């Protein structure tokens, strides 16, 4: 079985080389005349004022957190789905209970307004 992963391991090494090669080619083929105006931060032609930092809205964090919860839930459900043939109706119902408990959490988030972008 490890042979299967050998392919993936080699792919990881070679797959890192494939994007690096054109970038290196670009470094050698292109001109190299650095200039302070060229290296300036882009802001549609205007000069930048202040730091390059924006106020981070907590909304982004809530979306990432909800994604994490549902991701873990689905990773738990993958073995349940694969072993479906060996399970009786009781196991199917317990899997469905698992899903419904998390649907409750989604409904809570929905009703509290945490899923708005505001």
């Amino acid at each position: 079985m490890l042979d299967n992963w050998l392919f993936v391991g080699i792919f990881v090494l070679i797959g890192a080389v494939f994007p690096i090669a054109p970038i290196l080619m670009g470094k050698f083929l292109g001109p190299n005349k650095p200039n302070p105006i060229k290296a300036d931060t882009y802001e549609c032609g205007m000069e930048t004022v202040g730091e390059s930092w924006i106020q981070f809205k907590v909304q982004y964090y809530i979306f990432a957190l909800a994604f994490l919860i549902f991701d873990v839930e689905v990773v738990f459900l993958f073995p349940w789905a694969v072993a479906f043939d060996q399970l009786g109706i009781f196991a199917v119902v317990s899997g469905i209970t698992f899903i419904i408990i998390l649907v409750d959490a989604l409904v809570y988030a929905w009703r509290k307004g945490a899923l708005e972008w505001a």
Partner: protein
Amino acid sequence: MDFLTNPVDAIREWLLGLMANMPAPWPDVIVNLLGVVVVASFGLGLVIILVWVERKVAARFQDRFGPNRVGPYGLFQTVADILKLFTKEDTTPDNADKPVYNLAPILSLFSVLLIWAVIPFSKDWLGTDLNVGVLYIVAVGSLGALAVLMAGWSSNNKFALLGAFRTVAQLVSYEVPLVISILIPVLLARSMGVHAIVDAQDTFFGMFFFMAPIAAVIFFISSIAEVGRTPFDLLEAESEIVAGFHIEYSGAKFAMIFAGEFLHAFTIAVLTATLFFGGWRGPGAEAYPILGWVYFMAKSLGVYLIVSWIRSTLPRIRIDHMLSFNWKYLTPLALATLIVTALLTKILEGQAVWYQSLVMFLSNVVLFLIANEIVKWRESKKPGRQVVGQPRPVARPPAEPAAEAEA
């Protein structure tokens, strides 16, 4: 074995025979290495053709020709573009975080290339048959979000950072229905390996598209949102946020991000065709693997054309509409479909395949209609915009002074 019917296996046997007297792990390693190079080059070579296909198709939808000057039918246009991009100067914005800035485009293309390791091109023509192939695809796809965050952060640019945050919020939100809807073919095939999922779709009506149409559509929509194509491309739109997280990239690095995005769009077409439409399955594909490859490419190109069609037709969706569509419609619908499919699969165990397909298809249709009714009911409860007809002021001439003087 015959070279014409199964060239890949014939070449593999010949290579293993050549290296029969090398010590133990090396023949395997070298054959795998060659396989990796072939698959990765195939993926990257496809990008060149795909950019041309995309431009021609989008042009035809817009009633114009598309590139037709560089080479016959404009076929060398992409080569010209690549040459231009590679000979551009490699500038780095000042105060940018250099290692992270250089690593982000590499990671972006890397995450898409790695998906091609587990896709079956035909019977026995595949990189590797991981028994956890589907979850591997999800894992590698989620690296793309990390690459976007790295690119936006290291560019030292407010717009890039804002674009990166919003892009990651979108990517991460749409991964939830994606993963839930991937669980349904896994459930129907009882295995996480992509090869096994294709194997389980042996008849025409056994295609998982007929057994789980809602899952196929949700997977398709979520993958389009994952790639960032219209109608979900708010984050790269020129008029909205001036190219988002890749503002500060130019030249070869931009080419890598760009190539990664195009390859990702084709990869989701390939995944939809493999998971829901049977991949390389078709009449005569078991006997002649080359036919299997032809069916595979035909199905993937068909789905890719639908993706281009949607791109040319629909307008852009606003970000709050996009996210509420995801969390309030797609995720509950996907979860409900999962519950219904699990129950029906257990209840209908052992019946004929067409019977199972029919019942599940009908159950999906019923679920979709119920979802529509719920959405309509919620919309009717909202205080909608009332078109209040007020009498509009009409210009009237002032009263006649002669008539007043008379009266």
